[in-house]
């Protein structure tokens, strides 16, 4: 029924099956929206956050999602600025994923702050010394960029392109895309970094505090690096996932491997940097504030194993796999390495947000733990559902994978 909306010559599931696929996600979205509405209407007392755990699941996920969404800006950077033409195969998909991640994160943030009605005040009364200001500005700007980047993809839809105006607009906009790619890269550098700086500057939280260069603590650069390293991995992961679900070849394996390679190179650099940073922190930064580092890992759930997992298991291991040509040539290896890398960045963001707050500064305060309640989880699931819906619909009606037709034959 929607045949004339679907790109010519690619096979898509029947409308019925497609709806069947959408329904559960829509239900999840509805549930999550209800949960979020509860928090907005009754206040954040609805959540399990508290004065000790002022940041909870939401901030943690925002950080993770934004890090994983870095694939968008980085692929764009490689494609438009460094002219890595083979990435044309995934650039559209990357843009959609980036858009989904960032818009989702922004929505959750709006629920997370106590007074969403005053969110605009950051732009009106900014404190330029705050990392959060930087984050707010960058993310909103970059979300705008992503939206603009999304427009041409949208106009490539078979029906829409029939309209001459759209066609021309798409064409003209696409010719200017490198400008947006450059801007997006600039913005991403800053907000990925500032998200790291967010914690690195906390003098009062020796667990998170880091020295750095000029205005920026070391976490600033580590976050940029890790985001860039994991972005392509996440693209590999999502692409292969879509291929599994749709049972179609969408991207040439070489492209996947290329992204794996890029990811691997950056990842190994990140791991080294992270190791150096950790050693400096353990031996100088933290002790100089009178906090022997071993104390941070004193409480059961937050043991030193986290440190190991973060750097070796989820850092070094995938890096080595991705760097070896014949390992990454095999899909299972490539995919598992990519997922390890993604787990790594998520764990890193977890440590930065959750563990930082679990560690008390005052000597007589205990370690505390926190578990999100259904309102928080629901809100998060809503974002996931939203993402799946947007991506599914885009995949059905928009040319996300130009190579699909080649591979179809």
């Amino acid at each position, binding site marked *: 029924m929607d045949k004339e909306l679907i790109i010519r010559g690619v096979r898509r599931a029947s409308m019925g099956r497609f709806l069947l696929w959408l329904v559960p996600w829509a239900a999840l979205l509805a549930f999550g929206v209800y949960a979020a509405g509860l928090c907005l209407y009754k206040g954040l007392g609805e959540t399990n956050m508290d004065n000790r755990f002022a940041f909870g699941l939401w901030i943690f996920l925002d950080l993770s999602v934004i890090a994983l969404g870095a694939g968008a800006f980085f692929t764009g950077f490689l494609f438009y600025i460094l002219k890595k033409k083979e990435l044309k195969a995934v650039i559209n998909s990357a843009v959609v994923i980036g858009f989904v991640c960032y818009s989702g994160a922004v929505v959750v943030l709006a629920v997370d702050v106590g007074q969403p009605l005053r969110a605009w005040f950051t*732009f009106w009364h900014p404190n330029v010394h705050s990392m959060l200001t930087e984050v707010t500005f960058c993310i909103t700007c970059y979300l*705008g960029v992503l939206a603009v980047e999304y427009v041409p993809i949208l106009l490539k839809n078979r029906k829409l392109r029939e309209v001459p105006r759209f066609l021309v607009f798409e064409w*003209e906009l696409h010719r*200017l895309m490198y400008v947006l790619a450059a801007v997006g890269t600039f913005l991403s550098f800053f907000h990925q970094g500032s998200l790291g700086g967010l914690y690195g500057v906390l003098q009062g939280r020796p667990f998170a505090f880091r020295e750095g260069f000029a205005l920026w603590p070391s976490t600033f650069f580590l976050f940029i690096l890790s985001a860039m390293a994991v972005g392509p991995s996440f693209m590999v992961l999502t692409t292969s996932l879509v291929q599994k679900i749709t049972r179609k070849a969408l991207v040439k394996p070489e492209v996947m491997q290329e992204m794996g390679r890029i990811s691997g190179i950056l990842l190994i650099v990140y791991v080294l940097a992270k190791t150096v940073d950790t050693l400096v922190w353990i031996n100088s930064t933290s002790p100089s504030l009178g906090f022997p580092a071993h104390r941070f890992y004193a409480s059961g759930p937050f043991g030193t194993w986290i440190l190991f997992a973060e750097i070796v298991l989820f850092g070094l291991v995938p890096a080595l796999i991705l760097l070896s040509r014949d390992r990454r040539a095999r899909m299972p290896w490539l995919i598992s390495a990519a997922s390890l890398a993604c787990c790594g960045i998520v764990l890193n963001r977890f440590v930065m947000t959750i563990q930082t707050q679990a560690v008390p500064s005052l000597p007589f305060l205990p370690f505390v733990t926190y578990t999100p309640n259904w309102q928080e989880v629901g809100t998060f699931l809503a974002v996931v559902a939203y993402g799946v819906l947007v991506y599914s619909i885009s995949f059905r009606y928009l040319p996300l994978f130009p190579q699909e037709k080649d591979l179809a034959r």
Partner: protein
Amino acid sequence: MLPNVYGFQWSAGHLIFLGAFFVVGTIIAITLAMALVRSLRDKGHKVETIRWKSEFGDLPERDRACRHQFDGRLPGRVCGNGFDCRLCAKHAEIAPGTAAAEPKERYHHRGHTWAQPQPDGTVLVGLDDLATSLTGTPERLDLPAPGTRVQVNGTAWRMERNGASARVLSPVDGKVVETGDSGRGWYLKIRPDNVDFRHLLRGREARAWLQREMDRMGALLPAPAVVGPTMADGGELVEDAAKAMPEADWDAVWGGLFLQP
């Protein structure tokens, strides 16, 4: 943000920080605006060119094969000029000189139209045998009124048949003089602006290409392909493949045939 409102003060930091972001914002806005302005300024003349450029870009790689793959001179080369060899330096050095239009000769366009110069200086435009076989007699056919301008790779006419619709690309630049139909074997009579047909195929080159096109179409048609083998040994073409194989994805077939992604 206004200074001294609620004790808000500007500092160097503010100037740098806010400056940077307002610049970024402006850049984004300007980019959008430029694209918009350009698209509005264009009064529909560029549309045909742009459509071809954009659609050519979206064609699968194998459909963009350079003509010199067929004569084996540039194996594996992909065309970067939207099949307009007149702009192609490579082509110039491989096949120098202009191919002046010889009457009664059929010049084939990659979109499966041919142009046949007439003694009176006009050009007949029709569908080649493969296209004819795969389109049969269209259910709907809208040909441009005499006097309309057509351009190379621009829309020559549109046709529809069992759910599939296509824009047939024009092989030549010029003005429509007269319209025919499938019955008469040609569709348009055009008075061309020039007789530079370097971008069109003829003779052996055309046959080689056609051969290859048959395989390509064969792949799009359900097996056992009725068309495939018969064409492979240069034999007869099915009169009306569409009638023979209603189950085929004609939309895709036509897309492939007329170079529309």
